[in-house]
């Protein structure tokens, strides 16, 4: 169990440094809507190919690498993702939204690649995709399948494994002070995704020609935001990095930092 962060001086110092970084830049930022227009490139595989591949698998053996993942549930989850892309769900109260948005694009770009990658990861405990080598830590392997109270994610161990692996593999400046997984870190900075990290994941995992506008703390200078988003939605996929504290209010605090917190794939 992770010690209470607020009772330890080093954690208070870390939180203070991070807060200072955000506060220093906040006067230049308004409620953030950062943009990632993503132009569709060559689709690497089709949904039909992925369906044919996963439907040939009727049973999986339990994996020694992932002791808390039930093979039947894993396979069911994988098949559901392939058949119905919008079934992707990063869970309640987690910081997995960036990985969820990325996975949604991944399932459109290369569903067969998604299926083979997840099955390799499950079977061998590590996997290689393009030039990326995923080698999840022991803590991740123990936790996947055990996440609870996250809504539908509770019964989707394949997605739990995938999001935890992504968060374990990719690191950005928001993860500096919390790099190793402890129980409950899926809700904390360990799982956070910043602007540059999302960009990096998109470019490495997907075959899209992606172009990003904006920054973590600065809104993009694109003139009319509506026109810009609408125009780019005609030619590609747009991912928005928005301040979810404004869109989805959870409290009545007056002073809110103008920093983006949430990734959304915009579609008609």
């Amino acid at each position: 169990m992770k010690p209470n962060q607020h009772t330890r001086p080093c954690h208070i110092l870390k939180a203070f440094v991070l807060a200072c970084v955000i506060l220093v830049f906040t006067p230049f930022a308004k409620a953030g809507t950062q943009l990632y227009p993503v132009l569709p490139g060559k689709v690497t595989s089709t949904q039909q190919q992925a369906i044919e591949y996963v439907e040939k698998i009727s049973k999986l053996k339990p994996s020694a690498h992932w002791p808390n993942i039930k093979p039947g549930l894993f396979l069911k989850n994988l098949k559901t993702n392939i058949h119905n892309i919008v079934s992707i769900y990063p869970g309640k109260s987690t910081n997995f939204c960036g990985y969820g948005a990325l996975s949604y694009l991944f399932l459109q770009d290369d569903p067969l690649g998604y299926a083979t990658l997840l099955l390799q990861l499950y079977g061998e405990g590590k996997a290689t995709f393009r030039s990326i080598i995923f080698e999840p830590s022991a803590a991740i392997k123990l936790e996947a399948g055990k996440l609870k109270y996250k809504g539908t994610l509770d019964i989707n161990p394949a997605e739990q494994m995938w999001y935890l692996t992504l968060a374990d593999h990719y690191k950005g400046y928001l993860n500096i002070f919390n790099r190793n997984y402890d129980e409950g870190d899926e809700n904390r900075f360990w799982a956070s995704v910043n602007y540059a990290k999302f960009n990096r994941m998109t470019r490495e995992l997907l075959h899209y020609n992606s172009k990003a506008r904006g920054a973590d703390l600065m809104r993009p200078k694109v003139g009319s935001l509506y026109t810009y988003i609408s125009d780019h939605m005609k030619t590609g996929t747009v991912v928005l990095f928005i301040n979810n504290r404004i869109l989805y209010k959870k409290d009545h605090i007056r002073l809110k930092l103008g920093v983006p917190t949430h990734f959304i794939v915009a579609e008609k």
Partner: protein
Amino acid sequence: MLDRIEESYKALYPLGPFNVGFTDRNFKTVSLEIITDTLSYIYEFGIEEPRLIDTLMAYDLNAAKINTLINQMHDIRCTWISYSDYYVDQKKHTLILMSIKPVALKSLFSYAKYYVLTYFPQPQYFDSEGRLLDKRKLRRLRKINGEVFKRINSKVCYAVTGHFR
């Protein structure tokens, strides 16, 4: 009044799923989420705005009863009411989550606090300190939105949290 709000919401929800609450401190702005098979539509209205009723009618919801529910929520400073799902042994269950903003004065820089109530459809298990448990045998605390809840009666629990949902 709390039970009346819960019963009213429980009766209205199956006719057309929705969540509703107040997103401003003065309880003048109604946030309405209308849930369909494919999308959730999020609206904000002034409590007196005719558009609120028009929108409810456009979605074939019982506008009069939902409006009464909103007024009841307003009267007791009920910030939010929604359905939430959770899983036990891979089986889906639902509960009603209701939050209330206290009227007591607080210091300027302290966090806002909300009383969050959960209404379960069946009796729950609790430990000796009255904390909500996952299951009877497994002595793991059940957390909802990251919070540990305490017993009011066998089906209703509460927590004091910094978020109203």
